[in-house]
C-alpha cells in the first residue's frame, strides 16, 4: 500500500473546513458547533511541534520491584509530553465533573452501583452458574479459565480446531493481563487490535498506558512516527484525521478477512447470558459481527444480575470516564448469528483469590472507567507506563500487588493518598484507603527497602521519647540543622534539590511556650507571693 492510497477519502460534508479553526481539527456538529463527545478534548491540546522523544515506561527486570519514581522522572524530563498528558487527562476529569453535576441522583447511582457489585461479588458462584446456563441456552459455548495461561490455551484451541489464523479484537484489559497478544504471536496467530489507541500501542510494541485512552501519553508526532514506520504513512504528516484514516484504511482489510473476532466485556448479565461492550469506535461490533467465529473474554467479576442494572451502570460508566452521557456504541451480544459460532471464556486469573482479601476484595467492583487515573495528580505527571504493570494509576496500585507482590511492592507508595480517586470512583471503591492498607501489608511482609523501614524505626524511636525529641530539635539553632532532614526522614536531602528549605525559626513553639507562658507564670506567681 502506498502513501497515496492512504489519503483520506472525501469527507462527504461531515466536516466543513470553513467552520474549523486553523489549529482545531475536532469535528463540528450539525449546527456548526464544536463537538466534545467521546474522549474529545474541550479545547485543542496541540503539543508544540518540537521534536521530543517519547519517554518510555518503567524498566522491567523480572520480579524485581518496579522503580516508578525513576520512570516518572524520565516522563517529567519530556515536558512537552508531560504537559499534553496532564492537560488532556485533567480535561477529562473536568468533563466528568460537569457531567456528574448534571445528574441530581449521581451519588445515589454510585451507592447503587457499589451495592449491586457488592451483592454480586458475594454471590458470584451462583451468578456465574446462572450466566453459564443462560449463555448455553442461547447457543453459546462457555469455557472456564483458571488463569491467563488457561485463557490463552483455550482460545488457541478454539482457533486451531477451526483453522483460524487471523483474529481481530477490540480493546480488553483482561487480554492484556493474560499476555494474550504475545502468546498468540508466538503460536503463529495474527492478532490485530482494532481500537485506534490500542492499535497505535500494538504497532509501537508498547502496553496501553491508560485503561480508556491507551495512547494518551503519545503526541500526534509520536503517532506519525509510529505509523510512518509501520504503516508507511507520510512521516511529516501529523494531522490527526490523516493518521486516524490511515489506521481505518489499513485495518479494514484485516476485519474483512479475519477468521475470528474477539471482544472483552464491560458487563455480563447473569439473567440473560449477555455480554455488553461499550466502545466509541464501533470496533467491538465489527469484531463481533464480521468474522464467522466470535469469542468474548470475560473477567468473572464483570457479572451483574439483571438487565435493569445496566440502567445504573451505563449511566455511570461513560460519564465517569469521559464526561459523555454514553459511549457511541453500547452493544449487547447474547447469541450467535446464524451459521456462526460464539464462545465465551470466563476468566478468573486471581480474582477468586482477591475476593478472600478482607481489605481489598472491593477492588473487584472496578468497571474500568479510568476516572481514578484522570484525576490522579501523580498519574498525570508520571504517565501510565511508569507503573510497569497492566493496570496503572490508583486502581493499579491496589490491584497490581495481587498479581505479583514483590514486583509491584513499590506501587502503593507512588501516591499522595489525596483521596480524589475514591471520590470519582463510580462504584465507590475506597481506593486511597486501600493504598494505605497495602502499605501496611507490604511492610509487614518485608516488601519495603530496609533503608526506608530503618528510617521509620529511627523516627519512631525519637518521636516516642520526649527527651530524645527535644534533644534533637530543642535548641533553636540546632533545629534547622537537624529537623529538615529529620522531619522529612531523609538522609539523602532530596527535598532541597527541587525546593527551598524552610527559614530558620527564632525558637521552637515549645521554647516559646516555656519562656512566655511557664516562666512568666512562675514569675507572676513569685510577684504575687512577694506582694503578699
Amino acid at each position, binding site marked *: 500500500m502506498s502513501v497515496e492510497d492512504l489519503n483520506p477519502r472525501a469527507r*462527504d460534508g*461531515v*466536516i466543513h473546513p470553513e467552520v474549523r479553526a486553523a489549529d482545531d481539527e*475536532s*469535528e463540528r*456538529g*450539525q449546527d456548526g458547533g464544536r463537538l466534545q*463527545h467521546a*474522549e474529545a*478534548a474541550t479545547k485543542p*491540546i*496541540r503539543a508544540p511541534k518540537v521534536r521530543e522523544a517519547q519517554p518510555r515506561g518503567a524498566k522491567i527486570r523480572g520480579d524485581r520491584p518496579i522503580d516508578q519514581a525513576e520512570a516518572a522522572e524520565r516522563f517529567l524530563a519530556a515536558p512537552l509530553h508531560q504537559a499534553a498528558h496532564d492537560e*488532556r487527562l485533567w*480535561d477529562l476529569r473536568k468533563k466528568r465533573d460537569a457531567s456528574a453535576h*448534571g445528574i*441530581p*441522583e449521581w451519588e445515589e447511582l454510585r451507592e*447503587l452501583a457499589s451495592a449491586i457489585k457488592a*451483592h454480586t461479588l*458475594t*454471590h458470584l458462584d451462583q451468578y456465574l*452458574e446462572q450466566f453459564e446456563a443462560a449463555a448455553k441456552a*442461547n447457543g453459546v459455548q462457555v469455557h*472456564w479459565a*483458571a488463569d491467563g495461561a488457561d485463557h490463552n490455551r483455550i482460545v488457541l484451541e478454539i482457533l486451531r480446531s477451526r483453522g483460524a489464523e487471523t483474529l481481530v479484537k477490540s480493546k480488553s484489559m483482561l487480554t492484556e493481563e493474560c499476555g494474550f497478544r504475545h502468546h498468540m504471536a508466538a503460536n503463529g496467530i495474527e492478532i490485530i487490535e*482494532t481500537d485506534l489507541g490500542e492499535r*497505535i500501542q500494538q504497532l509501537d510494541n508498547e502496553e496501553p498506558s491508560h485503561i480508556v*485512552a491507551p*495512547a494518551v501519553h*503519545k503526541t*500526534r508526532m509520536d503517532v506519525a512516527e509510529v505509523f510512518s514506520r509501520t504503516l508507511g504513512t507520510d512521516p511529516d504528516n501529523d494531522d*490527526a*484525521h490523516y493518521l*486516524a484514516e490511515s489506521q*481505518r484504511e489499513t485495518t*479494514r482489510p484485516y476485519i*474483512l478477512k479475519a477468521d475470528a473476532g474477539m471482544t472483552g466485556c464491560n458487563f455480563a448479565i447473569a439473567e440473560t447470558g449477555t455480554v455488553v461492550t461499550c466502545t466509541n*469506535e464501533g*470496533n467491538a*461490533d*465489527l469484531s463481533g*459481527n*464480521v468474522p464467522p467465529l466470535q469469542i468474548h473474554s470475560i473477567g*468473572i467479576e464483570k457479572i451483574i444480575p439483571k*438487565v435493569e442494572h445496566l*440502567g445504573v451502570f*451505563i449511566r455511570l460508566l461513560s460519564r465517569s470516564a469521559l464526561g*459523555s*452521557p*454514553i459511549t*457511541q*456504541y*453500547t*452493544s*449487547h451480544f*447474547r447469541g450467535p*448469528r446464524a451459521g456462526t459460532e460464539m464462545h465465551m471464556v470466563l476468566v478468573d486469573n486471581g480474582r477468586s*483469590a482477591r*475476593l*478472600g482479601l478482607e481489605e481489598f476484595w472491593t477492588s473487584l467492583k472496578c468497571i474500568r472507567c479510568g476516572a481514578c487515573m484522570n484525576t490522579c495528580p501523580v498519574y498525570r505527571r508520571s504517565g501510565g507506563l511508569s507503573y510497569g504493570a497492566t493496570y496503572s494509576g490508583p486502581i493499579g496500585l491496589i490491584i497490581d500487588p495481587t498479581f505479583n507482590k514483590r514486583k509491584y511492592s513499590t506501587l502503593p507508595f507512588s501516591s499522595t493518598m489525596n483521596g480524589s480517586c475514591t471520590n470519582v470512583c463510580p462504584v465507590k471503591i475506597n481506593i486511597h484507603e486501600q493504598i494505605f492498607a497495602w502499605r501496611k501489608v507490604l511492610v509487614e511482609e518485608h516488601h519495603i527497602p530496609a533503608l526506608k523501614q530503618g528510617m521509620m524505626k529511627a523516627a519512631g524511636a525519637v518521636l516516642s521519647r520526649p527527651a530524645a525529641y527535644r534533644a534533637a530539635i530543642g535548641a533553636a539553632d540546632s533545629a534547622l540543622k537537624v529537623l529538615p532532614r529529620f522531619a522529612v526522614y531523609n538522609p539523602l536531602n532530596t527535598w532541597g534539590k527541587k525546593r527551598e528549605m524552610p527559614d530558620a525559626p527564632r525558637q521552637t513553639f515549645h521554647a516559646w511556650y516555656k519562656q512566655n507562658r511557664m516562666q512568666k507564670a512562675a514569675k507572676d506567681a513569685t510577684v504575687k507571693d512577694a506582694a503578699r
Partner: protein
Amino acid sequence: MSARAGILAALKANRPAGDYPLPDVPTFVPLVGDDLVEEFGERLKRMGGRIEDGRTGDPLAGVQERLAEAKVIASAVPEIAGNRDLRAVRYPQEVEDVDVAVVRAVFGIAETGSVLFTEGELIVNAVAYLAQHLIVLLDPADILPNVQAAYKRPEFGCSAYAVLHTGPSATADIEGVLIHGAQGVRSLTVLLMPR
C-alpha cells in the same frame, strides 16, 4: 479438578463476611423535558449525530443529498429504496462497499440521543458498521425518556444482538482530536418518520 469447579469452589471459600442484599433500583425522574423529540434531537447532535424531520413536506428532503451521492444503498426499510438486497447477503463481508445503510430503530432514548437496533432491524448486523454512512428512521412516538426506561424493554432479553448507537463511530485517541468514522460509520442521521 476442572477450572470451573476450582473457580466456583474458591469463590465459595473466599466469600466475604457480611450481608450484601441486592438493592432495589428506584425509578429516577427523567432528566429531560416533556418534549422528548426536541430533547432527543439536541442530545443526538451533541453526540455527533444529525437529525432531520421527515414529518412535514418531502419526508426524505433531509437525506436526499446523502442518498443521491451514494453508489450503493442498502436499505432495511420499505420507506427508502436501496440497490443492495440485505436479505440476499450470505456473508457480512459482502456489505463492505455499502455507501449508505438505512435502518429503522426500535426506539430512541431522549437522555442520550441513542437509538436501538437488533438483528431484526439490521438484517445484516455488520452493515451498521461497514457502511460509510447510516440513516436511521425513528418514529417520534418510539422515543423513551431515559436509559433506565430503555433497560426495561424486552429486546435485551430476547435478541441475539441488541445495540445502542449514539451518533457515529468516533475516536479522539490522538491528542483528543475528535474524529468521526474511526472504524464504523462516518455519519449517523436520524430521520424522524412515523412507522
